[in-house]
């Protein structure tokens, strides 16, 4: 933990939380504040640029990366409720940019974290106001970028244990891609369908009725497919569960 008593965190909301599920961003703010952080939300933020970048539109993504760097580089910490957006900032901005911009990207990468890894590894959040005690059986999907780029594996599980007193019903192949892949799921729907069906089957076999994870892209994909198949699987972002927000409709559920 840094010397300052109250770490100052700038929240990178992520475009999916901004547009699709603001409760994830509000939950993140609550969790960070419970951990003693002073949270601000830079108002000019939009998107980290992954849609274009992952499709190879490098030139179009460079201005987005520069905009994000300018907006966040003076923060003490930057935290995103998404492993893939944090990974974009930490690992891909430096690849995308050259010269002075690359140096600035590397400096930003140093202080940018995925939410659960920040809460566990940096501010060491170990307790919080008791949240729901009767969670349904729950399973965790390890989103690829969070797992492999940001080293997020034990942190969300540890938080669910310490904050919610819940053990994960681990599913088989929890670390295998759900088939989202950004534009992949729209470019290759048949293959994506097979992958998300495998995920749903593994989740179902775990005995869980609630699936959580740290990346809204995956969760929207999994929830959207579950709805289409008529499966009774609740899907929520881990920040929502950790902050006790379990009563609003789950992803893809009607109001």
């Amino acid at each position: 933990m840094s010397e300052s008593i109250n770490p100052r965190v700038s929240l990178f909301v992520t475009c999916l939380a901004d547009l699709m599920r603001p409760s994830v961003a509000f939950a993140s703010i609550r969790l960070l504040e419970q951990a003693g952080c002073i949270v601000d939300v830079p108002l000019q933020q939009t998107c980290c640029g992954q849609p274009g970048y992952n499709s190879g539109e490098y030139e179009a993504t460079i201005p987005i990366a520069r905009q994000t760097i300018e907006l966040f580089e003076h923060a003490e910490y930057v935290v995103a409720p998404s492993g893939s957006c944090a990974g974009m900032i930490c690992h891909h901005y430096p690849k995308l940019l050259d010269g002075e911009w690359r140096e600035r990207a590397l400096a930003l990468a140093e202080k940018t974290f995925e939410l659960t890894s920040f809460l566990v590894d940096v501010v060491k959040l170990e307790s919080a106001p008791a949240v729901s005690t009767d969670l349904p059986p729950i399973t965790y999907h390890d989103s690829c970028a969070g797992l492999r780029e940001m080293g997020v594996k034990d942190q969300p599980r540890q938080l669910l244990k310490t904050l919610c007193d819940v053990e994960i019903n681990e599913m088989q192949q929890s670390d295998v891609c759900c088939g989202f892949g950004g534009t992949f799921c729209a470019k290759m729907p048949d293959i994506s369908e097979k992958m998300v069906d495998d995920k749903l089957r593994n989740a179902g076999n775990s005995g869980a009725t609630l699936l959580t994870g740290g990346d809204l892209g995956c969760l929207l994909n999994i929830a959207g497919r579950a709805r289409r198949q008529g499966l009774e699987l609740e899907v929520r972002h881990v920040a929502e569960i950790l902050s006790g927000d379990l009563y609003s409709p789950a992803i893809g559920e009607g109001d």
Partner: protein
Amino acid sequence: MEQHSQHFKENAARALADASAVAQRDILALFTPLMREAAVSEFGDFAALRDHVKKMRQHTLDNLDYYLARFELEATNNGNRIHYAETAEDMNSIVLDICQQHGARKVAKGKSMVTEETGLNDFLQRGGMEVLETDLGEYIVQQAGETPSHIVGPALHKTQQQIREQFLENHDLGERDLESIGDLVGEARTVLRDHFLEADVGIIGSNALIAENGYSMLVTNEGNGDLCANLPSVLIICTTLDRVLPRAEDATAIQRLLVRSATGQPQTCYTSFYSGPRRAQDADGPLETHIVLLDGQRTDILASDYSEMLRCIRCGSCLNHCPIFAATGGHSYGWVYPGPMGSVLTPLLTSLEASEALPNACTSCGRCEEVCPSAIPLPDMLRDLRHEQSVQKITPASWRNGLRLHAWIATRPRLYQALTGIGISLMHRLGGKKGGFSKLPLASGWTSKRDFPAPQGETFMRQYRRRSQSNER
């Protein structure tokens, strides 16, 4: 080999419609990673070995001319004849010439992906040779008139029952059960044994060429490579020039990584080093040995941004860990090399146009890079190929323009937030009650397979701005 990569999506849809083949691939996708994981975790410091091999491979590639010259010198001193082939056609012609010079009729062949790449079997058969694959998987695939579906396990797409039926139909050996795997292997061995003894020429591949002593290393589990190499009077080793390594201990370092990564074994049943033709004091061995080194655009790759791809040791681990390979199977990729390594190599060795779908057959999940024994940044390379496709306008214009428009708006925060504020509120009003959309304009790729969850309500930015403003008041 003829290329069908342009039909990847159709090939994949067909592959996904075959339920029993899907089930077989699901089992492989579950177990092959577990086998690798067990072998790697028992090894000790696998990461350190991987890092060492990565550096050693990169050093060799950076000094390829030096090590090739050294290999040529040492191998020639051992009595080998070295041939350089610039193109696939050159390699095929060199091999056929050697066969014809010896009046050969029969060729026994060990497993070699390079010769799949050049289409050597067809070429030799057109030149009047009888060519028999002797690796069990390759034998099965050749007999079925198919191509390998996996670079390590060529017949992994076939079930035991399918192989049984194939053998009963193709081998004229009378009434028999062939109920067990042992029976099938035994029968293949019997059929192949005669062929080994009758073959005039043996052809094998190589896992490493050792510059300091001119040896060629081959890793197999069946010993068929040794029979191809030692029984016929002429041996031809077909490989590519990027296989060269400085020292014998570098080859064994690769072997330790390769085998664990490929099959999860600590060691293959056979690891052989071929020095050259039979010497006066030797009891057996070929009388004449040739090493044909194919460039096949490897030097172009070496000079390109994709040079790290030449570190690939063909273990197949990226295939075993790729969920897209697991879903589609190897044949869907439509050429020699499938999976992540194939999706990089195929565009480089054929063309970006003909392989359009392959760099897109990736969710950037990163599992391939995580397990790659040569630490090749496969997801980065696939994304770089997508970038090249965009630059060359191979990517459909609708995608390019849509993504560029998104980026353009995203760099104008006020416009972005105004547009998303209106759009998201509208979407919530239309879909919030039901929870999602089963059809949505501009998102048919998404909604063809899944509902599009409705936004929760207003955008976060709108809500947050309003709260901040009321707090200020």
